[in-house]
């Protein structure tokens, strides 16, 4: 015990001694810091140093003393030798740089997921905002359960007082033998009777249908009509709703009538009658009756009551309109199909067919040309286009089919979708196609220019204008406006000064007439169509004397007047420079000398013969109108590669005056459609999963977007 105390004392003494000694030393010793506050900002000065570290060598030394522990000490030493000292960590700036670089690479990759979405939205014809997506989520259970309601106390009590009848929907079990023997026999007899009656009726109907007497049929029809009318009247009293349904039946009959040619003048019978109608009044009447039947049938039901009566009564022809079978709308409906049907017969049909065929093949040719041009213009066209089948005939047919597809759906999505399939078929040397095939740019060859962002090929090419605004301050603008105003004023003055041409004589000069051939302006529309048209005109309308046609207004005279004006406009005139009173007496009654007058007249240069001088009724303009030049496009705008392409884009009309309503609507759809008052949310991550975005395989565009610099 004492020993221990002694040693303690000694230790205390020893510590004191050491501290005293250390105080002699002037150097500062940093006390070990302690961490007592959790923070995420650790100073490098605050790190705790591990001074009293366990040294394994020492431990092993202790163990070695006893033979028993040799094994363990060996093991310890082994682990010691196997452990590697970690290399010194990188300097902080370096480490951060590496961290940033890796982080950046990661983000780059992550951001790249959006390429197809962006590429698609930049290339499609129109986008609607906000981008909506139908959520495929099912209704949450809690929501579903809220639909069930607990009954209130009152409801429960009420139910007790007056229980609702339970709806029994239990199915009755079918007995094995549903009917007794007698019942079965009766049933069979009933069935046999029914069948017999059916067959009688069928036989009767057949017999009646074979009766050729027209009178019989007429009487029959009348009877039937009367019967029906009676029934209908009864029905109207009894059950108005049912009657209404019947009325709908009449409406249906009207629809049917509208698309048949039954009561038109197109049938064989009507045609025969038409020939005789000229001479026979009765026939004319018959024809009119027939047509009026059609009219009454196709007439819209305006009023329930009145229409019924009309429909059921014998049709009373409207004589004022239907008397004359030559009346064009009585003869036939002004329906285009009808016209074609009427005029399509005989050799004309043959010619037309031939022309149609010709046109079709021509179209396909031109399409192919277009494609080939496009391919040439692109630097590296994809070769794996749709390969042709070996037989040329078949190829043609496929081509025309493809054309038809194109015309049916102007957006070439279809073609694009089929592209992968086409790729599979690649490597056949002969490859012609009329599909829009995206070109793949070679990333290495192309200059690294980000302008390519603009080159994303839209499906609908439009001119891209990226120019400065033409800005001007208001002062200059006013000046311009003034100039313009001046011009207009001077024009107005001029117009006022020119004497109004007196209208030509209303009497027509029999000598003045023009022989007119149908003439066509130089449009780019293929000549074939025009020829066809010409032929058609010749067929339908025989050669016309233009003077006769326009009896009211004198075209000929006005044209000649126009020509005269045109000639006079260009004719140089003599300029009179005489100054009365210059070198002689002047004033009232003094006539200038003739010699002097002649001296001062500047003679106009001799008139050049006009090109249309002796050519009759024709005006040839010899000079370009400078006013037109202002409106002309000087060069081909950006996305277009040739004048031909650009012209084609201008030529394609958009208005519903020129193209059908549906096409018009499709063509004028704006490229960005937004809804009024709807907030457009930023792009959502769910868009990545939308099939149309995932399937957007326009590799060239995506590559353009994702190209590394």
């Amino acid at each position: 015990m004492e020993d221990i105390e002694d040693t303690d004392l000694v230790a205390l003494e020893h510590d004191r001694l050491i501290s005293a000694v250390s105080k002699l030393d002037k150097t500062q010793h940093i006390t070990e810091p302690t961490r007592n506050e959790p923070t995420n900002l650790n100073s490098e000065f605050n790190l705790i140093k591990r001074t009293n570290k366990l040294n394994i060598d020492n431990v092993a030394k202790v163990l070695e003393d006893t033979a028993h522990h040799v094994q363990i000490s060996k093991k310890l030493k082994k682990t010691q030798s196997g452990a590697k000292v970690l290399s010194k960590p990188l300097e902080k700036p370096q480490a951060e740089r590496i961290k940033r670089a890796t982080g950046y690479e990661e983000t780059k990759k992550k951001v790249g997921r959006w390429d197809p979405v962006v590429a698609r939205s930049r290339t499609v014809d129109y986008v609607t905002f906000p981008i909506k997506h139908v959520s495929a989520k099912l209704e949450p259970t809690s929501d579903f359960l809220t639909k069930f309601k607990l009954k209130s106390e009152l409801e429960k009590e009420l139910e007790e007082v007056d229980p609702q009848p339970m709806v029994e929907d239990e199915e009755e079990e079918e007995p094995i033998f549903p009917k007794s023997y007698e019942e079965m026999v009766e049933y069979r007899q009933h069935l046999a009777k029914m069948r017999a009656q059916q067959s009688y009726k069928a036989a009767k109907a057949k017999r009646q249908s074979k009766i050729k007497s027209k009178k019989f049929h007429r009487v029959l029809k009348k009877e039937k009509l009367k019967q029906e009318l009676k029934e209908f009247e009864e029905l109207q009293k009894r059950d108005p709703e049912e009657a209404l349904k019947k009325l709908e039946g009449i409406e249906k009959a009207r629809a049917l009538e509208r698309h048949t040619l039954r009561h038109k003048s197109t049938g064989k019978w009507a045609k025969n009658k038409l020939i005789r109608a000229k001479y026979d009044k009765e026939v004319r009447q018959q024809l009119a009756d027939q047509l009026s039947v059609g009219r009454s049938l196709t007439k819209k039901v305006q009023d329930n009551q009145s229409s019924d009566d009309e429909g059921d009564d014998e049709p009373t022809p409207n004589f004022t309109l239907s008397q004359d079978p030559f009346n064009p709308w009585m003869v036939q409906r002004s329906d285009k199909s009808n016209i074609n049907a009427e005029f399509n017969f005989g050799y004309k049909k043959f010619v037309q067919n031939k022309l149609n065929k010709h046109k079709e093949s021509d179209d396909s040719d031109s399409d192919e040309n277009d494609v080939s041009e496009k391919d040439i213009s692109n630097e590296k066209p994809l070769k794996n286009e749709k390969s042709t089948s070996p037989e040329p005939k078949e190829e043609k047919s496929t081509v025309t089919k493809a054309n038809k597809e194109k015309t049916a759906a102007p957006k070439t999505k279809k073609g694009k979708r089929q592209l992968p399939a086409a790729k599979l078929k690649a490597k056949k040397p002969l490859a012609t196609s009329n599909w829009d095939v995206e070109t793949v740019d070679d990333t290495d060859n192309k200059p690294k220019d980000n302008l390519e962002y603009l080159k994303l090929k839209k499906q609908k090419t439009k001119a891209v204008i990226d120019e400065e605004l033409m800005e001007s301050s208001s002062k200059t603008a006013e000046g311009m406006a003034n100039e313009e105003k001046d011009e207009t004023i001077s024009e107005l003055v001029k117009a006022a000064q020119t004497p109004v041409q007196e209208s030509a004589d209303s009497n027509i000069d029999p000598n003045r007439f023009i022989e007119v051939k149908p003439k066509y302006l130089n449009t780019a529309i293929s000549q074939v169509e025009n020829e066809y048209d010409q032929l058609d005109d010749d067929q339908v309308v025989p050669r016309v004397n233009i003077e006769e046609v326009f009896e009211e207004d004198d075209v000929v005279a006005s044209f000649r007047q126009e020509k005269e004006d045109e000639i006079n406009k260009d004719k140089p005139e003599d300029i009179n420079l005489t100054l009365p009173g210059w070198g002689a007496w002047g004033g009232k009654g003094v006539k200038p000398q003739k010699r002097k007058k002649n001296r001062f007249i500047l003679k106009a240069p001799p008139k050049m013969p006009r090109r249309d001088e002796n050519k009759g009724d024709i005006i040839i303009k010899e000079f370009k109108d400078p006013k037109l030049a202002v409106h002309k496009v000087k060069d081909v705008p950006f996305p277009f590669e040739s004048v031909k392409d650009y012209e084609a884009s201008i030529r394609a009309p958009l208005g519903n005056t020129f193209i059908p309503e549906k096409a018009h609507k499709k063509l004028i759809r704006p490229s960005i459609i937004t809804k009024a008052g709807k907030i457009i949310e930023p792009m959502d991550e769910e868009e990545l999963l939308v099939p149309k975005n995932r399937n957007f395989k326009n590799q060239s565009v995506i590559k353009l977007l994702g190209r590394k610099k």
Partner: protein
Amino acid sequence: MSKMKIKVISRNPDDYLRATKRDIHKLPRNYDPSLHPLEAPREYVRAMNAVKLERVFAKPFIGNLDGHRDGVSSLAKHPSRLAVLASGAFDGEIRLWDLAVRKCTRNFVAHEGWVRALCFTPQGDTFTSVGDDKTIKTWKSEVQSSVDEEPVNTLLSMSVVTGVTHHRSKPIFATCGEHCQLWENTRNEPVKVFKWGVDSLHHVSFNQVEQNLLASCASDRSVILYDCRESGPLRKVVMELRSNALSWNPMEAFIFTVANEDYNLYTFDVRKLKQPINVHMGHTSAVIDVDYAPTGREFVAGSYDKTVRIFESLKGNSRDVYHTKRMQRLTCVKWTLDNKYILSGSDEMNIRMWKARASEKLGVLKPRERTALNYADSLKEKFANHPQVKRIARHRHVPKHILNAQNEIRTIKQKAKRKEGNRRAHSKPGAIPFVPERQRHIVKEDE
């Protein structure tokens, strides 16, 4: 042939009866192109008329919101309500506006000194403001009781905070000032601090699509990209002059545009920072603020030259320029979330509302009217390259000072070009390389 009979158009009037009074009169048409040889010229005339009408109706200014007693410093748009707008002024006042009736609904002094930035939380129930007094305050968007008028939360920062932006889905927001800091609504200290060599940042903005990306503009002329999760700062691009503001494209995750002091705007792809993908020119003074349209196709820029310009994101020149006599230096611009209006705040204490498309008709459009307008638009597009159409469509009146400044800039540019040409002519071939415009304004890209 005694008497020739000409077939004239004669139709049964019964076929042309309208079913109802509102029905359109039937107009039989023959679409055979050979019957319309002049269809292109006719459409050209229509296009000319359309483009003239467009300029006639181009009256973009809708109205202004006045009430601030100092210049407007910042604007914030509500994420889910189109009519709500918050604005901060240089005197520390914040005002909330109802745009539909053009009235101020609430105003209070929020900070001592200048309200640097404002931003709504994604739910829109609160908004955050930062000011020169080193505080970040969160306010309720709607006041039900007097308690709501006090800030919901006030955070004290160590240094001045100049910008704030909110994460699109998580409850975290980023501020910038000395460093870029990430805050969580419930904590008093920043969750993370991103440092990268710069001591002052003046604008920060979260990407709305790739939600963890954010970018900030620094005073050392750089634009820094961050990831708000582990990696922190990612990359820095240093430009010739400093960028004032930054806006991410809300539809294209990797595109952002910066408004620069050198009168230009630059659109960058996150993956290719070495050079901008587009340089947008047109302003005649420093561009102060930029904001993308929610469709991502266009953006609006406000400049120190007292004009607002609208650019298409893929084109280098502006589509339109707005100005009024009384509008002074622009401080902030915003494009509303329905893609219809533009809001601009300026030095002279007013907030102005503009139409995003100058000649657009406001209000309900009947179907036929809409069709007619669409037709006019597509005609304008079709004939856009015809000189007369282009002349009318692209002509703008600008104040004289802009015109003078433009002339000055033009001469400066020509001078530089001539000088470069001369130097090239009088030095060894290849000694003076051709540097494309896009690369000219970028100093370096830092890793």
